[in-house]
């Protein structure tokens, strides 16, 4: 893995290598160099299998992390390419021409994270959701519980008690909490 990293590093401005296990590592790639890196890995290094393409929302940092996980079956090792993109613009180059199956991943990311991949087939179409009317649900700032409570009726009558508060009310009725 280290040698591979050295070879890649010579070609592209990569970030630090994170070796998660002996056969799995992650490395950060600038968005502009992703396509070349992927091509190089696919055609020269035998990383022919696109395992997955997904995103992580680092809301606090204002970034989306796109993870392209590639697998080299002969070496039985995986390399994850991390691409950090701006959360507010959220656009990335499509790679559906390298792996047709990436189009599906990109459709999902578009719908669930609101990340655009211009040129990707059927990117505009609804994929999983139907008639979605809120911010993309996988974004961290989307509160699913709040949405669910507002949108869907629940069976009424649920009420619970906090043991600590309940005990104090029962055992020391009328007493104002000491020191507070």
């Amino acid at each position, binding site marked *: 893995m280290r040698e591979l990293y050295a070879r890649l590093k010579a070609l592209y401005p990569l970030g630090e290598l994170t070796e998660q296990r002996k056969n799995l590592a992650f490395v950060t790639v600038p968005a502009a160099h992703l396509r070349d890196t992927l091509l190089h890995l696919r055609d020269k290094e035998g990383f022919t299998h696109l395992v997955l393409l997904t995103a992580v929302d680092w809301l606090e940092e204002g970034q989306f992390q796109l993870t392209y996980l590639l697998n080299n079956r002969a070496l039985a090792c995986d390399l994850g390419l991390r691409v950090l993109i701006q959360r507010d613009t959220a656009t990335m180059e499509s790679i559906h021409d390298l792996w047709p199956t990436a189009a599906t991943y990109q459709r999902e990311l578009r719908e669930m994270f609101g990340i655009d991949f211009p040129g990707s087939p059927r990117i505009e179409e609804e994929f*999983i*959701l*139907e*008639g*979605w*009317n*809120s911010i993309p*649900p996988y974004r961290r700032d*989307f509160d*699913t*519980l709040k*949405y*669910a409570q507002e*949108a*869907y*009726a*629940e*069976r009424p009558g649920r009420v619970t008690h906090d043991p600590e508060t309940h005990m104090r009310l029962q055992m020391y009725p009328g007493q104002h909490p000491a020191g507070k």
Partner: protein
Amino acid sequence: MTTKPELMKRMVKGPDGLEFEVDPLRDYYCEAPPTVMPGAYIQIVEDFFNWARSKSLWILGFGTGCGAIEMRPLMTPRFDAYRFGVAWRPTPRQANLFIISGYLSTKTLKRAIRAYEQMQNPKYVIGLGSCTINGGMYWDSYNTIKKLDEYLPVDLYIAGCMPRPEALLAGFEEMKKIIRTGKAEGANQYAENFAWYKANQKRVIHDWDMPDYNW
């Protein structure tokens, strides 16, 4: 209301060269709302009907959620629900019992409503598992409904996640009892409170691209 292209009114030229107008929303759907089906005038006749109905529960083979997996054993020799007068049908038009087998995403809810409305009277609904009762483990999901009886009239709930085939069989027996005693009034309830059900349905189905009623 956004209408999909294939649902839009258009002129179509047939293979024979004749042009004709197609308006899917009008042509494919029925706009007449369901009506309450009164019982037989003579009670003993109604009792007979109910007895007969209870003997033939024909289930719509639409697996809406996880629970569908426990229906396969019922259709096969080990549990063999057929001997209890329970059968599965591939189309709503032949079925009278709709089992909502667990959670319903809003996308499936739309199809489930349509399937339900396509079923012939008398028809019954069984809700399977926690999800249909109060949301189950998807209680905080943005995409599933929590309380089935807001959207469809439910005659019976079976607890479990998911309920075992044996529990389902017990549910069928209970369902039969309810039908025999003439208490399975879900379909009439749906007709009576049609506006209320529709309002609830429309509240959660955002791309309502069909008329209110179809069968």
